[in-house]
């Protein structure tokens, strides 16, 4: 113990240093450690909250962006649909007009054909009448005069020529 005293060990000073440390510990804990640790915790929480908020804002922004893009896309589609619809209507109109025109044309042709048919029928009727008349006339002639071979042939030829004439006239 005496040797330790020579080394500078002194119970009073040791006690003083112990008291010093405890005092410093208490003061520092009250003044520095507790407030700063609290502050660090608060700051940590705040930063975390801020980060979370930033995340949320970012997510919201992304959602909004998506929503906006979706709407844009929708609008574009609607426009396209409208354009398509409009062009479809025009096409239909065109088709309709064309069809109308075609139908008109067909109608005209048919009318013309009908006319022709009618006229042909009339012609045929006329021809039949004529033939009948001619045959009657020929028969009259045959009946009215005795015919030789030559005259007969002449008669037939006449008749045929008359018929040809009728046909070509038609």
């Amino acid at each position, binding site marked *: 113990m005496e040797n330790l005293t*020579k*080394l*500078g*060990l*002194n119970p*009073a*000073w*040791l006690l*003083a*240093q*112990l008291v*010093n*440390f*405890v*005092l*410093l*510990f208490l*003061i*520092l*804990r009250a*003044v*520095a*450690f507790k*407030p*700063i*640790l609290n*502050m*660090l915790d*608060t*700051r940590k929480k*705040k930063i975390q909250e801020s980060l979370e908020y930033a995340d949320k804002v970012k997510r919201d922004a992304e959602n909004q962006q998506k929503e906006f893009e979706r709407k844009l896309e929708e609008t574009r589609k609607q426009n396209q649909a409208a354009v398509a619809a409009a062009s479809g209507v025009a096409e239909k109109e065109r088709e309709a007009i064309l069809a109308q025109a075609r139908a008109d044309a067909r109608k005209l042709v048919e009318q013309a054909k009908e006319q022709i048919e009618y006229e042909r029928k009339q012609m045929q009727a006329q021809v039949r009448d004529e033939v009948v008349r001619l045959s009657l006339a020929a028969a009259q002639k045959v009946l009215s005069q005795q015919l030789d071979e030559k005259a007969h042939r002449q008669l037939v030829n006449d008749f045929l020529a008359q018929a040809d004439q009728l046909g070509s006239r038609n």
Partner: protein
Amino acid sequence: MSSRNKVWFVALVFIGIAIAQKQIFPFEAPAVSASVAVKPETLFKIGGFEISNTLLTSWLAMIVLVLVATLATRKLKLVPSGLQNAFEMIIEALLNLAESVAGARGRKFFPVAATIFLFVLTSNLLGLIPGFGPIGLYALEEGHQPPKGIVTFDIPQIFFAEEAEKGATPLLAPFFRSPSTDINFPLALALISVTLTQIFGVQALGFFGYVGKFINVGKMGKFFGGLLRGKAKVGDFLYGLLDIFVGLIELVSEIGKILSFTFRLFGNVFAGEVVLLIMSFLFLALPLIFYPLELFVGVIQGFVFCVLTLAFMAIATTPHAGEEQH
């Protein structure tokens, strides 16, 4: 300028300074004894209590610390700046250190470890402030002899020439001296550190759980229990002996901790001061080379004291792993 040239340049500047100093303060002046004393010098007495210069310096360190801490935390802001920022950085670094060494319990050990670090750091650095050594009271006694156990050096003395002529040997007792060079300061810190380690250990493991680390008779009891029933195993006896022995070693190592804490801090800082003093007598500008080294040592010793305290506390609060192993 290459680095080699720089070294030569610095060396020449040192030599120049030394020569200039020698010209200004010739060594023929009457000498005062600057002592390398292990024991701190008593400056004055208050009542019966002697105030030593190391005690004074530790009070100064405390005042500085409390002042800085108060200034830094006076108006705590969420967004720190200036002093608050710097102080918070230190505290946060210490907290991270505590948590990396002791894990989740780090927060509990942190205030003690941080106080130790800050106290040791501040007092070590204060002790290195130029002028702390050579400014002090002079014990001027007629026919004063340097006390035994003190190695004295002669340093140039200009202010006390009159008294010196009368045959007195003025003895320098510096006002301020690094508290770590006084064995009481490291011993006090070591005692607190080791005592708190025991308290935390008991808190974490319960009294018997903690004491069981040192007095480990479980295996021995098993052996004697077996002996009573007539089927004792020799292995139990040997393991029991080993456990008791290990427990005793751990008990001794707790006391060893106090000694190693004390003498590590005391030895390092005291040796640093002696080196600086001796160097300044060898060659006046030489201490400049050792100064940064001593600053480094001062910081490192504080850091080490703090880390070791944390580590010992972490070990003390961890349940003994040996019981499950065999």
